[in-house]
C-alpha cells in the first residue's frame, strides 16, 4: 500500500486525486491497522502494558518510532453490564454501575438515579441533591488525582503518582465513612441517597481541604512546572475542535479542544444551578491543554466542595419509596458530567420490575474512538502520553 493510498488519495491516469471529501474530523478512512503489513512494525501495545490503564489493547503501526496508524481493540473487561441490568430490579442496578466506571462510581449511580427519577416522576429532596453533588465532587477530585498520577507515570515521573495517594486516601476515607465503601459505593438510589452524612464528617472534609490546595500545587509544580514535561506535552496529541466534535468527545478532552460545554452548567442537575464555578477551557487541544484543563477543574472542584459544605441544607435525604420500584413504560435519558465527560444512561422500561434495556453512554468510550486520529503522526512516547491524557477507564469502556 502506498502512502498516497493510505492517506485516502488515489493515483489515476489524470493524476493524484482524492476519491471524495473525507468526513469532517478525519484525515483518512479509518480502516484500522493492517496486521500483515511487513514494511512497518505492528506493535501490540497491551493488554498487558503499564500505560494502557487497564486491559486496553492498542495495535500500533510503526515506521521506526513514528506511529502510522493506531487501533484500539476493546473488550477485555466486557462483563455485559447492560445485559445484567435487564435482570436486576431498579435499586439493584447501582451495584453494577459502580463497577462500570470504577474511579467515579458515584457519577454513574447518580446518572442512573436521575434517569429513573425522570421516567418515574420521582421528586428528590433538596438535601439529597446536595449530598449527591458533594459526593460527586469529592469523587471527581479523587478520579482526577488518579489521572494526574498516572499521567505523570506515563510521562516517566514517578513522584506524583505516590503523592496523590496521600490526598486520595483521605477522600476515600471520607467516602467510606459516608457510603460504607471506598470505591463500590452503592449509595445513590432512585429517590435520594441511602443515608445522611454521619456527624463529624464535615470537619474531616474541611481538614482535607486545608491541605488539598497545597498538595495540588505541589503536584502541579512537579509536572506542569517542569520543563521536560512541558516539552513533552506542547503540541503533541493534537485533537482539534472539529475532530473532537465529530468523534463525540466530551468532558475535559472536548473543553481542551476549545468547546465550552459542561453539563453541570449547561444542563444543570442536582445542586449545580445554585453553585458558582468556572469551566476551564483550552484552545489547541494538545496534551498540555488537556493537562491544564483538568488541573483547572480540580481547583474548581475544591471551590465547589467548599460551597457545598457551607450551604448543605437540612431535611430529608430520601423520598419515601417502595423497594420494588415500578417505573412506567417509556424511555428516558439523563446525563451527568463525570470526570471523563458526559456520562448518560438511556433507560427503556416496559413497566416491569426490571429495566427492559439500559444503555450506558460512557464518555471514555467515545473519547477513545479518536485514538487513531490523535496518535498517528506522533512518536511512541507521544502515543503513550496522549492515551494517558484521554483519561480512559476500561471498566467504563468495555462495560
Amino acid at each position, binding site marked *: 500500500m502506498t502512502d498516497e493510498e493510505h492517506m485516502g488519495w488515489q493515483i489515476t491516469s489524470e493524476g493524484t486525486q482524492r476519491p471524495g471529501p473525507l468526513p469532517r474530523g*478525519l484525515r483518512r478512512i479509518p480502516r*484500522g491497522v493492517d496486521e500483515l503489513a511487513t514494511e512497518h512494525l505492528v506493535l501490540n501495545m497491551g493488554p498487558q502494558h503499564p500505560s494502557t490503564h487497564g486491559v486496553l489493547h492498542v495495535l500500533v503501526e510503526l515506521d521506526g518510532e513514528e506511529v502510522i496508524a493506531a487501533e484500539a481493540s*476493546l473488550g477485555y473487561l466486557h462483563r*455485559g453490564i447492560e*445485559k445484567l441490568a435487564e435482570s436486576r430490579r431498579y435499586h439493584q442496578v447501582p451495584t453494577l454501575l459502580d463497577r462500570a466506571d470504577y474511579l467515579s462510581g458515584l457519577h454513574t449511580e447518580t446518572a442512573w438515579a436521575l434517569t429513573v427519577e425522570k*421516567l418515574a416522576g420521582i421528586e428528590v429532596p433538596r438535601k439529597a441533591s446536595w449530598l449527591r453533588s458533594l459526593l460527586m465532587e469529592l469523587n471527581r477530585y479523587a478520579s482526577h488525582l488518579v489521572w494526574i498520577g498516572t499521567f505523570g507515570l506515563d510521562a516517566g515521573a514517578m513522584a506524583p503518582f505516590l503523592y496523590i495517594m496521600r490526598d486520595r486516601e483521605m477522600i476515600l476515607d471520607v467516602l467510606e465513612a459516608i457510603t460504607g465503601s471506598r470505591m463500590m459505593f452503592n449509595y445513590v438510589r432512585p429517590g435520594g441517597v441511602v443515608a445522611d452524612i454521619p456527624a463529624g464528617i464535615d470537619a474531616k472534609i474541611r481538614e482535607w481541604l486545608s491541605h488539598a490546595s497545597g498538595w495540588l500545587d505541589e503536584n502541579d509544580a512537579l509536572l506542569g512546572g517542569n520543563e521536560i514535561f512541558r516539552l513533552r506535552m506542547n503540541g503533541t496529541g493534537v485533537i482539534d475542535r472539529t475532530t473532537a466534535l*465529530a468523534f463525540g468527545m466530551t468532558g475535559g478532552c472536548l473543553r481542551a479542544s476549545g468547546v465550552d460545554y459542561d453539563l453541570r452548567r449547561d*444542563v444543570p442537575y442536582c445542586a449545580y444551578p445554585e453553585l458558582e464555578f468556572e469551566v476551564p477551557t483550552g484552545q489547541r487541544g494538545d496534551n498540555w491543554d488537556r493537562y491544564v484543563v483538568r488541573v483547572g477543574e480540580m481547583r474548581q472542584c475544591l471551590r465547589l466542595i467548599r460551597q457545598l459544605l457551607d450551604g448543605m441544607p437540612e431535611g430529608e435525604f430520601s423520598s419515601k419509596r417502595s423497594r420494588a420500584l415500578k417505573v412506567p413504560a417509556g424511555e428516558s*435519558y439523563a446525563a451527568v458530567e463525570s470526570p471523563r465527560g458526559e456520562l448518560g444512561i438511556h433507560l427503556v422500561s416496559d413497566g416491569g420490575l426490571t429495566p427492559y434495556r439500559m444503555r450506558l453512554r460512557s464518555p471514555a468510550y467515545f473519547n477513545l474512538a479518536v485514538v487513531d486520529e490523535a496518535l498517528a503522526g506522533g512518536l511512541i512516547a507521544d502515543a503513550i502520553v496522549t492515551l494517558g491524557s484521554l483519561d480512559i477507564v476500561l471498566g467504563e469502556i468495555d462495560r
Partner: protein
Amino acid sequence: MPATRPADVLHACGIPFEASTEVLGEVVRLDVSLIADALAALEESGFDFLVDLFATDTGERLEVTWHLRAFAQRSDLYLKALVDYDGSAPSVWETYPAALYPEREAAELLGMTFTGHPNPKRLLTTDGTEPLLRKSVLIRTAEEVRRPS
C-alpha cells in the same frame, strides 16, 4: 448555521417521518432506508454531535436509536428506526465518525449489520459469541447461580 427545527429539515428533504415528544425528548421515527439521508440533512442543519447510537431488542425487531445534539441550540433529538433481526442499517460514520464504535458494538451485541462500515470487526466480544443483548439470549437464573455447599 441554519437554526431550523428538525421536522422542517426533514420535510424539506421530502423524508416521511413520524415525530413525537416523549419523556425522552423529541423523537423522530422513520424508515431505516432513509436514515442516511435524514442524518446528513440534520447534520447540515446544526445537529453536529452524535451523543450515542444503540439498538434495543423490542421482541419482534431491533430498534436502532441515533441520539443527536445541536450544540448551538443545546437541543437533543432522537431518531429511531426498526430493523429486522440480522437485518442491516446504513452506517453513518461518514456523517458522524463518533458512530464508528457504537455501530460495531450494536452489530455484534444485537446481531445486525451496518452497511458501509470501514472496519466492521467485532469490538467487545470474541468471534462466535451470540448476540448477547437479544432477549432470546438468557442469562443464568438465581437457581443456576447459587452453589449450595
